[in-house]
């Protein structure tokens, strides 16, 4: 089998999330594949625009909603630039799913705190819906999401739904200066909002995704709130290429982020050489 050859998918819907982020809703061209495709929250895939190349993103839709796959991407290079030009009905390539996943089983019966910044909400959104779709198996849920400004918030249309759900506490924030005149959410950087919301650490697992700088300042806050290193989970945005543990790009210490990750606990990250 040619492990490098993607399957063909069709773009069914395009959502303009922010000025530089779009979400694609994709479906396999081959119906059988669509029906058999299964993945776990936290896994990623390699998406291709033929003639331009491949790009790695997490799968942003939930495994509990298998009718389609979604990915959200930010304009950052050659391939994402080409992706932005695609239209509904266009064909792309997809290889995957790859990598490990969020420890869903372990989270059952516990409180869950989701913390995300910017486009870091994409992998978190996948697990949020996964958890919400199995709501009764989890205890209290807290979602803290921040972006630079109101226009940089992704999945605005769903945040509303989360806010309306019982037993789900959803706090949305924008960086100071990023608010609009009618902004009703919080104003402040994610780490300080986390400190303010102060989720409880007992029987709780926290999932944190976002830009490196946000992660860097949020970890100490979590520690201060009494979260253990093993109960804090993140996913690494390490530059990947093959997704198959071959090309060497994602190698950090003896770990291959594409195979052993992308999901790591804070504890595991601390054990790795400082190269991410």
């Amino acid at each position, binding site marked *: 089998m040619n492990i490098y050859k993607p399957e063909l998918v069709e773009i069914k819907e395009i959502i303009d999330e922010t000025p530089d982020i779009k979400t694609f809703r994709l479906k396999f061209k081959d119906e059988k594949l669509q029906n058999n495709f299964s993945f776990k929250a936290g896994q990623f895939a390699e998406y291709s625009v033929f*003639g331009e190349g491949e790009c790695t993103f997490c799968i942003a839709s939930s495994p509990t909603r298998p009718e389609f796959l979604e990915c959200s991407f930010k304009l*950052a290079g050659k391939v994402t630039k080409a992706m932005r030009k695609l239209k509904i009905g266009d064909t792309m390539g997809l290889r995957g799913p790859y990598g490990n996943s969020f420890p869903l089983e372990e989270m059952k019966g516990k409180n869950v705190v989701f913390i995300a910044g910017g486009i870091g909400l994409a992998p978190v959104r996948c697990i949020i819906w996964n958890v919400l779709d199995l709501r009764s198996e989890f205890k209290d849920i807290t979602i803290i999401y921040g972006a630079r400004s109101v226009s940089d918030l992704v999945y605005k249309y769903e945040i509303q739904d989360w806010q309306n759900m019982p037993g789900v506490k959803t706090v949305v924030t924008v960086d100071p200066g990023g608010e609009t005149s009618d902004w009703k959410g919080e104003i402040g950087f994610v780490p300080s909002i986390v400190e303010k919301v102060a989720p409880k650490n007992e029987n709780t697992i926290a999932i944190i995704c976002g830009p490196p700088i946000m992660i860097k300042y949020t970890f100490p806050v979590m520690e201060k709130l009494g979260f253990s290193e093993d109960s804090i989970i993140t996913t690494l945005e390490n530059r990947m290429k093959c997704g198959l543990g071959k090309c*060497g*790009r994602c190698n950090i210490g003896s770990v291959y982020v594409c195979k052993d990750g992308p999901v790591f606990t804070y504890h595991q990250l601390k054990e790795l050489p400082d190269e991410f």
Partner: protein
Amino acid sequence: MKSFIVTRSQINSLAAELLSKNWSIFTQSEDRKRFKQCESESEISVDGNGKPSDVSFKELFFPKSETLFYFNRDNEELTLLDPAEPGTKTVIFGAKPCDAASVPVLSKVFNWDYNDEFFNKRVENTIVISIACSYSDESCFCTSVGLSPFSEIGSDLFLIPTEKDSFILKIVSEKGEKFINEFPFMIQKEFEGTFDLENQKASFPKEKFDFASVKEWLGKNFKDEIWNEVGELCLGCAQCAYVCPTCHCFDIVDENCGVSCGRRVKNWDSCQFGLFTKHASGHNPREDQSRRYRQRVNHKFNYYKQRFDEILCTGCGRCTRGCPVSIDIAQVLEKIQCKQSAAIV
């Protein structure tokens, strides 16, 4: 497995017969640059005394640029097409033990979980006939990484020169056995004596460092001034990785050949290039050459061992011989071993 006595002229006949049956034959070029394809049996080199080729034979298993698939956008429909399978049966004559040993080492990374059939097909189709090595220079260090001029690892057949134009032909792998059985004239005269390896050991390159101590030190010391010392001088080319028989990093890129078609290719790449780990956001976790050289040494002598239980180096010395600024990887490892010894005392 059995051994036989063969002569140089029998080896030539073998090559001639292979050529007549459309096998590809590769051997070291006269200038010892690389492995070249032979058109006639007279070109094959089975010379234990020659320098290892400047570029290893890895490109025969893992080409510098390999098509993964073609895409075609004709009449609105997009189709993907697999490239032709690398079907040619190949024999490599006169590989060095430090060449041959790289094949099983590479096989590990190309076959954990996902199998890279491009690599596997080529390995499957290739018979490696190595020759015991009597060359050694200041850059060689096979004996420090658990190999020797007589290592048979990775070979299918192994030649040991005895007297002039005569060799012991050892059958090493099952594949080698099956292959050689097809050529009865090669297995006429069984070698029944024993070859005294002990006698040869005096002429082996001396062990330059103790691998276990090096690995132990690397595991404990991520930050150290040694990386700055080397990194300051290292120019960050990828000569060392590209000539190396075990380096296997690659990039995947698309190439268009017209408006409606193109191909996706796997190209050699290396952790020595600054762009290798640069994220689209501009962030680069290995931003300077000292970090990149540290990755090279750690990947080879620490991480790969942890992960695949193999040393990602056969001690062939190519990287050192070819380095534009003569960075000697064995000297770096010797230094590390000294640091480890000092730490123990």
